[in-house]
């Protein structure tokens, strides 16, 4: 029998959900959602489960990851229950459930904790620079090493275990054990979605958003690879240097346009919902990933510029800023922030295909 948690709706509201308990249970949201399908109907079911507080079923549901928050359901909901926002909050809540460290939830719910953690990183960088007596060469050398090891560690200690937890909660615990071979057969799905986020294409009218998203993912990954693997900032290789500048330029332009479009879309959405109470509740932490990615690109660009202009030795601060941004990104934002949604989405598609393949088989 399903266990019901009466306090669940209160808990969920801390993750941003709004007035979903006013839901009529009419199904309009599901019927108008352009991503819901005959096999996978949402968001009404999740609104219902959330209102009742059937945690276990929510934990095992992959549906929240199939929603790309186009907002259509919310603007047409007859009760202004904001089902789109509920789906977003469920993603935040699930992220916290998957995370074994428990930090994701904490950082979502509390801005002071988030700010504190960020400041801690600033302090650490300054202390470290002090310890190295502000030696540019040594600090840059260490910074480069940090990039590689930190990313590997975060992946092994946090992201991987969290994905395993997600797998356990959504595939194993509900008893859907697919045979071993299915894992290989479906792997293609994982990579396809990881890189393209193809599913957003299903949302009406946002081809452009999807395309920009795609360019951004590829662009930032390339930039990251260039700094981490090719050592863009320290290299003498003219080809790498020029390519790095080029990629940065593209990435900056697309980011600016992307953010502009998002703000416009949000305004549009708010105008559509005739009741003003339906304004979007973006959490600061939702935007951090994008902003920090941008800052990282920008500071990396500046550092390289300073190197090329040969003024880096007198301007160590620019590198320290870059390092701080990098450390914050790698240790806080990547493992605990919205970025993980991107990862979980891809895995959700993967798990989903495992389960459906399995169902077909049985």
């Amino acid at each position: 029998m399903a266990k019901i948690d009466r306090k669940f709706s209160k808990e969920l509201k801390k993750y941003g959900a709004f007035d979903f308990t006013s839901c009529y249970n009419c199904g309009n949201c599901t019927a108008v959602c352009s991503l819901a399908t005959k096999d996978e109907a949402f968001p009404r079911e999740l609104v219902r489960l959330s209102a009742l507080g059937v945690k276990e079923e929510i934990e095992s549901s992959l549906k929240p990851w199939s929603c790309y928050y186009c907002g259509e359901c919310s603007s047409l909901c007859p009760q202004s229950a904001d089902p789109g926002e509920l789906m977003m909050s469920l993603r935040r809540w699930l992220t916290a459930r998957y995370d074994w460290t428990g930090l994701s939830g904490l950082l979502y719910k509390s801005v002071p904790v988030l700010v504190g953690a960020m400041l801690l990183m600033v302090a650490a960088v300054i202390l470290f620079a002090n310890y190295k007596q502000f030696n540019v060469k040594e600090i840059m050398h260490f910074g480069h090493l940090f990039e590689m090891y930190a990313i590997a560690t975060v992946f092994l200690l946090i992201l991987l275990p969290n994905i395993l937890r997600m797998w356990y909660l959504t595939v194993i615990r509900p008893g859907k054990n697919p045979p071993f071979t299915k894992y290989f057969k479906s792997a293609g799905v994982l990579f396809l979605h990881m890189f393209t986020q193809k599913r957003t294409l299903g949302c009406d009218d946002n081809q452009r958003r999807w395309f920009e998203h795609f360019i951004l993912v590829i662009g930032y990954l390339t930039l990251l690879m260039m700094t981490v693997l090719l050592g863009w900032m320290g290299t003498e290789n003219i080809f790498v240097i020029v390519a790095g500048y080029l990629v940065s330029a593209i990435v900056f332009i697309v980011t600016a346009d992307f953010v502009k479009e998002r703000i416009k879309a949000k305004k549009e959405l708010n105008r559509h919902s005739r009741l003003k109470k339906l304004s979007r509740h973006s959490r600061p932490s939702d935007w951090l990933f994008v902003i920090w990615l941008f800052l990282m690109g920008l500071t990396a660009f500046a550092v390289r510029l300073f190197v090329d202009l040969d003024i880096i030795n007198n301007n160590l601060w620019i590198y320290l800023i870059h390092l701080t941004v990098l450390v914050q990104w790698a240790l806080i934002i990547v493992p605990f922030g919205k970025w993980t949604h991107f990862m979980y989405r891809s895995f959700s598609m993967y798990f989903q295909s495992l389960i459906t393949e399995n169902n077909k088989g049985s």
Partner: protein
Amino acid sequence: MEKEKINLFFDAMVIGGGIAGGESALNLANNGYKVIIVEKDLSIGGKMIMLSKVFPTLDCSACITTPKVSEISRHNNITIFTESDVNSVVKMGERHFRAEITRRPRYVVAEDCTGCQKCEEACPVIVKDQYQYNLIGRKAAFIPFSIASPKIAAIDIENCTLCGACEKACPSNCIDFTQKALDYVIDIKSVVVATGFKLFDPLKIERYGFGKFKNVLTSMQMERQLAPTRPFNTILRPSDGKVPDKIAYVLCAGSRDDSEGNPICSQICCMYSIKQAQLLMGALPMADITIYYIDIRAFGKGYDEFYEQAKGMGVSFIKGKIGKITKGERGDLTLRYEDVSTGKIKEARHDMVVLSVGVLANDEAVPMFRSNTLLTDPLNYIRQEDPIISPAKTSIEGVFVSGTASGPMDIPDSILSAGAAASQATAYLKRIN
């Protein structure tokens, strides 16, 4: 030059000649008070006179409205002004209101018109017939509808080409294009506001395709198709005149919907849809009828039994609000919804769809009151100052509200409300005299 205004005296003025206004007027008149009904339309009777049958008794609506209407129009104590607008109502003192009224010209001498319809036959101009909710056409010289009261012709001057054919055709010579609007000053002691309700405009819900897909109708259009004075004498779908055999009802179209600005329940649409479904089962025994609902609200006496009866007759009820309607083959329509009982998205094909449009407030009476403010509630219905103890009382002493002007209600409740307004007005008149 100041136009001469005609001065008249009454005990009470009823604004709006629907079933509620008529009932209030009749009660007051039977108590010996002189009453004037000011109706903006060409006929009294309001929405009820257009209906087919009424739930839950399935009495013929025209057959109960017509005797009532003729009783009202023949009553010695009642004066009826159709095609008239109340321009202002000013409270002059403790027991005295003064209203300014304009009676628009009909271009037909009312006393002489016999209702022979010769002008109608002669007129070459055809426009949409608003009294048949645009299902068919009418002429520019026309009698509004067969059971209109008064049943006399009128000229739709906006569409008339002044060809003169009607003038020649009229055997009693009553067409008169020189008629001018007449202004009246009316002194009264009390006012009853019975301006009724407006229907939700389904064009606002674009995803339901009303206006775009011909076979998407409103419930009022279906009432006309089912009424004894119906235009086609059977049920036809507009796109190709086919007799439909798979009809869907979309409940809460524009009611209980925050996103459409009307969050409340209209109270009548579940019931009238169930009624229409039963009538359709009678008219088209082979047809499948499906009602898509959020909740079925059958709250009144005998209503739930009426609902059960519809189920027993084979009407299908599905819980799930229709998300969108798209065009299928040959004029058919596809309705997308989530079947809430199974949690599955479904697409159903129907050859005709009826939108059970909701009730909206008609707040036209508010600006008429110049010296005191006629307050409304947040959804623009006339505010009842004391809805439980004296339901007809408004924010102005001596002004009472009757029927759906104060909120959505069905006919039995409108009649009760009209009775309450009349008795409260009577008590008031007794007190001030």
